[in-house]
């Protein structure tokens, strides 16, 4: 296969430059792909598809009968980021998370940012993610958002923008690790030549963060991952992460609160739990504090948490920063809390709650992407240029009825990456979700989940709506740290052979 025939379609392509030749960072991969004999590309793609099913790397689909599992389609052409560009992204993400954490802490304490009129009070008061139950709370080590997945996109201008923050229970990191595992078996030769930075130590990093949160009095903390159960769409990930971290995977019914502590039900009786990585939304965490009808949570958990006898990651209440209206204020938050200029810009955002913006949005709705403030997964969203007139009119009505709940952004020309379609490559739009861990310091995993809209022309990358994923390669350069190099060194020892013993 040759890149000569590849059509850029007028979009920024992550792999192929405007002159039609592969970008510098991807040269090894491009050479390798071009050298593949006819039919080899599709053979490897099929082999990857098969491996996913056999390994059971699946997600459950809501709305279909229980137990229906699908694989997240995996495309074998990776998305590659050069070392230099990554350095800037990493700095930008650290800056953003630091500011967001200060912001959340401020909201649940003095609310200086509201008093100083940087963020209007009613935006916070009306945010679904703001939890009155958390006012005055002090999470262990002062950290609220331990695990964040921030969605990035590249626009036609070549610039990387932040599309949204996910501070509640961002998912997808298991696919990053499994995709890498697959790619190593599919393209071993390209890996060595390209100097791809490893992602495999993420589970250990995450475990360190979780242990760091345990109460001081505990010498060897027990950390568990709390899942809604086997029917949750992200169950595979919960199970995978628990396994990779070597911690217990628990369901709400495995835990019980007694005597001011959280216990788990074991074959040897009740054992104390110190840190919970919860993959359950605030609403369902504790029926005594939040939704009383929740069957997934642990009654009384919040009381134990407030008393400092158990740590929760992420801290309840941190979802306030997921609000898409709050998002629009992040550059101002960075200025306010850190007194710095924003490194990674937001996508320009119109806040429907502000009068001027509202009238602009209503007039130009067919050119804009409109999003509900508190939805995720690609739901509650209008892509103006792809919508019918009725759909636009319907959304306009919804915005007018509840302007606080909507923002709008220009339709971005998301960058594309060559993707296997039948027996050749075509450009498909992608985004990128890197994962950021906040413990003793802030760590950004080199890479992240590249989601790809597999339908021709589609801009929606969500797995629930026809999206797939790709491996993401961040390349190392001379400045790359020792940790990476260690992970790369092969084992030296060799076991004895029979002859040697005779």
């Amino acid at each position: 296969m040759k890149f000569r025939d590849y059509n850029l379609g007028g979009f920024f392509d992550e792999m192929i430059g405007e002159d039609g030749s592969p970008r510098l960072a991807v040269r090894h991969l491009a050479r390798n792909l071009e050298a593949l004999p006819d039919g080899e590309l599709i053979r490897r793609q099929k082999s990857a598809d098969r491996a996913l099913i056999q390994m059971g790397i699946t997600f459950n689909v809501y709305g279909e009968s229980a137990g229906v599992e699908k694989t997240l389609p995996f495309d074998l052409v990776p998305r590659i980021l050069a070392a230099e560009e990554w350095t800037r992204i990493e700095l930008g993400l650290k800056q953003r998370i630091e500011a967001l954490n200060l912001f959340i802490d401020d909201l649940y304490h003095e609310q200086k940012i509201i008093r100083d009129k940087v963020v209007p009070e009613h935006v916070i008061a009306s945010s679904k993610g703001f939890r009155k139950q958390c006012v005055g709370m002090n999470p262990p080590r002062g950290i609220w958002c331990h695990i964040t997945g921030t969605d990035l996109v590249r626009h036609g201008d070549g610039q990387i923008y932040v599309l949204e923050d996910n501070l509640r229970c961002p998912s997808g990191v298991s696919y990053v690790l499994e995709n890498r595992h697959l790619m190593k078996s599919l393209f071993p030769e390209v890996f060595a030549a390209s100097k791809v930075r490893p992602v495999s130590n993420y589970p250990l990093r995450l475990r360190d963060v979780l242990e760091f949160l345990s109460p001081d009095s505990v010498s060897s903390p027990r950390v568990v991952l709390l899942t809604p159960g086997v029917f949750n769409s992200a169950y595979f990930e919960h199970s995978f992460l628990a396994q990779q971290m070597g911690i217990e995977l628990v369901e709400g019914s495995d835990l019980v609160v007694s005597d001011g502590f959280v216990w788990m039900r074991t074959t040897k009786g009740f054992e104390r739990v110190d840190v919970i990585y919860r993959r359950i939304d605030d609403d369902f965490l504790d029926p005594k504090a939040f939704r009383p009808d929740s069957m997934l949570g642990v009654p009384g958990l919040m009381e134990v948490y407030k008393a400092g006898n158990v740590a929760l990651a992420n801290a309840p209440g941190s979802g306030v920063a997921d609000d898409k209206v709050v998002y629009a204020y992040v550059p101002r938050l960075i200025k306010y809390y850190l007194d710095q200029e924003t490194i990674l810009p937001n996508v320009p955002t119109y806040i429907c709650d502000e009068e001027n913006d509202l009238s602009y949005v209503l007039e130009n709705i067919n050119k804009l992407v409109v999003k509900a403030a508190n939805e995720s997964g690609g739901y509650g969203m209008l892509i103006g240029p792809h919508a019918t007139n009725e759909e636009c009119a319907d959304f306009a009505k919804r915005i007018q009825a509840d302007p606080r709940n909507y923002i709008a952004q220009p339709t971005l020309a998301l960058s594309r990456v060559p993707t296997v379609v039948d027996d050749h490559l075509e450009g498909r739009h992608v985004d990128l979700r890197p994962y950021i861990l906040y413990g003793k310091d802030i760590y950004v995993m080199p890479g992240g989940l590249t989601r790809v809209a597999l339908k021709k022309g589609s801009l929606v990358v969500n797995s629930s709506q026809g999206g797939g994923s790709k491996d993401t390669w961040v390349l190392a350069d001379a400045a790359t740290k020792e940790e990476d190099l260690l992970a790369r060194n092969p084992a030296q020892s060799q076991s004895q052979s029979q002859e040697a013993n005779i």
Partner: protein
Amino acid sequence: MLSRVAESIYWMSRYVERAENVARFIGVNLTLMLDSSDREQQWAPLVNTTGDHEDFEKRYKMATEENVLRFLTFDRDNPNSIISCLRAARENARSVREIISSEMWLQLNTFYLKVNDAATRGKGMESPHDFYTSVKLSSHLFMGITDATMTHGEGWHFCRLGRKLERADKTSRILDVKYFILLRSVADVGTPLDDTQWAAVLRSASAFEMYRKKHGRIWPKGIVQFLLLDREFPRAIHFCLREANESLHAISGTPLEQSTSDVEKLLGGLCTYLASTSVDEIINNGLHEYLDHLQDQMNLVGTKVFEMFFAQRVREPEKKPASESLQ
């Protein structure tokens, strides 16, 4: 270990073993049929021994080879068919994927997908011998991977406990199938019956060659001794229960020579019982009655295992939760 997790591991393992043994039942019968001149009546007892004959009669009526094979292999409404067992094993494994090794999951998932594919496409029946052999081998592979890749700690012991209890129960049923097929009257016991047919029973428990080494000549008493009382053959009931007992003690931490809980006393008692009975006693008192009693006792062990280790998941702590006592 979480009670829920322990229970899932235990059942994962039991269901894989059960699927294997259903394949063994069918395997031995297929072989017997090849040598049998009287081809009709011999499929019904197979359904009887799995205890699902009422369901079978309601839905299939005639115990033809085709019906029985379908019922025991691919019928998703029969909870003890091979496909149902594997589905249950896989669902249990899926809920403890982080506890078992990735290799175990991969093998079990592949195993399930293969049989599921055969069930969906109705394939496998054109060469039933190959199909049932591959089911047995896949199960062996799973057990081997389990032993080689999972830490031999609490989880592994629950795995082994489940497997050995299931195997002991099923070996007793394989013997019982033979009892139904061949021992129409008690007077037949001990008479030189067709060697080929007894050999088929031994083969169904992968015991033929091992039996030969130990007993040489094939005769019913020797077979009963070997499959029931042998202390060294891995599918013998006595051997299985002793290993189950070891795992039980490893889990509870009680030394092997002691028994503190109900379940330890019961299982330890069964082992002693098997160690002290002779083949002659068993045959004289009735093999079928003996096996029946043994099966009841083994079922009771299963119930006690549940009470001792798994029931914790629904129990309340003795002290009242603090938040409640304030109200």
